[in-house]
């Protein structure tokens, strides 16, 4: 499956080490245009300023969680079509179902490897 590596990606996580890990993995996959935000509110600000081709977000963040960010994105006419992958340690069945109902495109449980990240990105934005 081909990946359009020119798409801008927004990585949302309040743990700087995880942001750095994901950004490094994305760089290895060929993505160069990658920004980050430390929580859902900061991410919404960035999403309003720039058109992103993919959001990769953690769930558990303060003040705005990734789950709330997802719901905001899906209820905003200008953002609702933005592909959204949740990358989180929250792996209870009800979390996955709630995220799916809220419109998440894919769901990755931490800890994950590069292969899983690649496969999920391909499934969501691959052509």
């Amino acid at each position, binding site marked *: 499956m081909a990946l359009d590596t020119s798409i801008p990606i927004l990585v949302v996580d309040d743990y700087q*080490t995880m942001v750095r890990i994901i950004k490094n993995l994305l760089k290895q996959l060929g993505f160069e245009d990658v920004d980050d935000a430390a929580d859902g509110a900061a991410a919404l600000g960035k999403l309003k300023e720039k058109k992103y081709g993919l959001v990769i977000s953690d769930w558990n963040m303060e003040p705005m969680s990734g789950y709330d960010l997802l719901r905001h994105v899906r209820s905003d006419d200008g953002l609702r079509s933005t592909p959204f992958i949740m990358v989180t340690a929250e792996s*209870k069945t009800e979390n996955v179902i709630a995220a799916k109902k809220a419109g998440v495109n894919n769901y*990755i449980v931490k800890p994950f490897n590069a292969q899983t990240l690649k496969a999920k990105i391909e499934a969501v934005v691959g052509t």
Partner: protein
Amino acid sequence: MTASGVEQRQTDRSDLGSAAAYIAELRMAINGLGLLDLAERNLGTAHADIEDVLCQTRKAAAVMLETAESLLGSCATGQAYKSLVEQRMIGLIEASGFQDLTGQRLCRIVHSLHAIEERLRLFAAHVQAQDGELRLGTHELARKARAMEQMLAGPGAPGAMTQDGIDELMRLAG
């Protein structure tokens, strides 16, 4: 004083004696908890230990990421690249040392938690405690409410799924 009055007075005296004995017993049980010792020696150092573990693991992760980034971003070839890899590997080996100290600190925290748990169990048994309605502070109440509202259970919580299970659920949910 009538006969019944004397009898009542003896009963009151006996009740007061029982209450005083219970209070003395309770005081002994409370003192046996060693609250000051728990606060100063167990919980006090646990805070510092956990903060240090966070700091050390963060530093080690930074060294690992810097190593990977410098090697992946390097333009060096041949002997120069080999030297760079060797130098960076030494850095990784040194960084691995964090596990020794953090392991010792975590062991100390685990011991402290065991000590607290054991003393509380003894106390509860001593006073024949039964759980009533919990009285939570505002911070704990807010934390619980947010966890409930946002479905926050954390890693490895009961009911946690593997990636394969999640993939299957996502597929089924269409």
